[in-house]
């Protein structure tokens, strides 16, 4: 035996003096003593995209169970609504899904308008849909960028944030805020569209198609990225519907379900676009790769919608965007469940009115909350290193999960 090997064996036996290793026994399978271990992930962990704590039960490197603990960002949204009038709630809605505040506002004002039976001017609807779709792209850019970051790709993240900046600039020009807008009001908007925005949009669509191609080359079809994501965290379509998945999470399983098509709101029925679904040709249906892929496709579809809006937009319409805002926002006695499609999925508001200026009860069905509840189902049996990739593919926003 070479001297160096002898020395190493000696040192290892002295290190493990209390439990001496017997080499021949180690390789006999079935005799290895395994023990379940509980690992705590978060709440301060970069890959949790906020403050989420995961209690992970591990058998070696294999995930046996995941128990999410949420509530670190709970700001009592539903309790606050009891003390606020309907328009005062809008800024709170912004702070739920702070990555896609426009989409959250759109859902909320749609719900209240449906309760009060308000007809919104056509121009307002065009601006709302334009901004909702821009917001969808901005949100997906963050999802795609940070997902690359989770898997170890840094460059696409910078490309995504560069493009997102253009969108935020358009929002800033129009309503003065970059993230939390309070832009969509019940019956109208706070400001008219800034005259520069349509031109900026035209340039943006062109540039964004270019970025889309680049991200596909850099990230989507990158060998390492595909190896990390394909076949990981597979979700069955039956389970997905039963467990309340929505948005890209549901569509990646091959279920063609989009509120914009299946239960149209605003003026989405005027635009020609496809519902992006996962592809079984690229990877397993419902896996982490397909969730990313659906976001890439939706980005393209949103660009298509924006192009159609730019063609159809009533440029010479001088309607005041605040003309349909009622003097008193006081929905009649009744209740409603109203839902819209945000970048993360089905955002629903269950609002009960007792004929007061304040709602009696507002309950939010936040898509990220429902999607996160599926995490234990899709991560069992995968490696702990895959857990970060699976979590990233769900695209949660903790502000919306905890409300």
């Amino acid at each position: 035996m070479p001297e160096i090997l002898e020395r190493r064996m000696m040192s290892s036996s002295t290190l493990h003096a209390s439990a001496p290793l017997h080499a021949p026994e180690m390789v006999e399978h079935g005799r290895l003593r395994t023990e379940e271990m509980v690992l705590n992930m978060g709440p301060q962990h970069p890959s949790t995209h906020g403050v989420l704590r995961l209690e992970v039960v591990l058998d070696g490197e294999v995930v046996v169970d995941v128990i999410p603990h949420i509530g670190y960002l709970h700001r009592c949204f539903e309790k606050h609504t009891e003390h606020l009038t309907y328009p005062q709630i809008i800024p709170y809605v912004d702070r739920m899904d702070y990555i896609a505040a426009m989409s959250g506002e759109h859902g909320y004002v749609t719900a209240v308008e449906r309760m009060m039976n308000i007809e919104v001017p056509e121009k307002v609807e065009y601006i709302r849909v334009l901004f909702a779709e821009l917001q969808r792209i901005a949100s997906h850019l963050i999802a795609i960028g940070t997902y690359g970051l989770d898997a170890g790709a840094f460059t696409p993240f910078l490309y995504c944030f560069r493009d997102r900046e253009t969108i935020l600039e358009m929002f800033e020009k129009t309503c003065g805020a970059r993230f939390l807008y309070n832009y969509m009001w019940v019956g109208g908007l706070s400001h008219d569209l800034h005259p520069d925005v349509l031109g900026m949009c035209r340039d943006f669509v062109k540039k964004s198609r270019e970025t889309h191609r680049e991200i596909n080359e850099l990230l989507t079809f990158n060998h390492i990225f595909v190896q990390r994501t394909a076949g990981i965290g597979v979700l069955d379509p039956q389970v997905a519907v039963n467990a309340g998945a929505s948005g890209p999470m549901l569509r990646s399983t091959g279920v063609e379900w989009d509120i914009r098509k299946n239960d149209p709101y605003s003026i989405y029925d005027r635009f020609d676009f496809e519902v992006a679904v996962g592809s079984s040709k690229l990877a397993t249906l419902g896996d982490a790769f397909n969730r990313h892929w659906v976001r890439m496709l939706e980005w393209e579809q949103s660009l298509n919608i924006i192009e159609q809006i730019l063609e159809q937009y009533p440029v010479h319409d001088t309607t005041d965007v605040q003309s349909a805002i009622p003097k008193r926002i006081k929905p009649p006695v009744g209740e409603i469940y109203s839902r819209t499609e945000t970048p993360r999925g089905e955002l629903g508001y269950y609002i009960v009115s007792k004929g007061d200026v304040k709602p009696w009860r507002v309950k939010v069905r936040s898509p990220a909350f429902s999607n996160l509840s599926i995490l234990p189902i899709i991560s069992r049996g995968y490696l702990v290193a895959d857990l970060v990739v699976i979590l990233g593919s769900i695209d949660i926003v903790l502000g919306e999960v905890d409300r």
Partner: protein
Amino acid sequence: MTQHEIVGQLHAAFGERLGAWREMTGGSSYQRRMGSHLEIADPSSIRDLAFYLRDDPSLDFNNLMLLSSLDNADGTLSIVYHVESTRLGHQIALKATFSAEDASVPSVTSVWAHANWHEREAWDMMGIHFEGHPDLRRMLLDEDYPGHPLRKDFKEPDFYHGMKVPY
């Protein structure tokens, strides 16, 4: 199926255990569709009803959109189920009302997995106990938080863990 046909079928199958069909009048057509609800007179039959809603081929309510809880401020609490069939494209809402004291209803987590976290939230916020729930812990608040904040008679404690609660 229209909502009237669904209600007719459910009344035929469950009879006395269901209550009246509360239809919204006025408002938008969307609100008439999504704001009307069927009352459940006997809350203890919720799970049977849920299995029937999901498994009957002509109803096929495979998607629980939302489970919400509600305090009516008259000593009763309500729980509302908004269900829909993604294949047949129809929706309906069901509402059960029961006394706020010892509020307890059967869990529907075994029917729709989506109910799991929403029932935990209803327990956390409204103090409704769900019989047969696999893991009924508080969802958002601390385990030792006093009371259930979304009840209308909830008084915010002055001190929590020895710390003064602001405002």
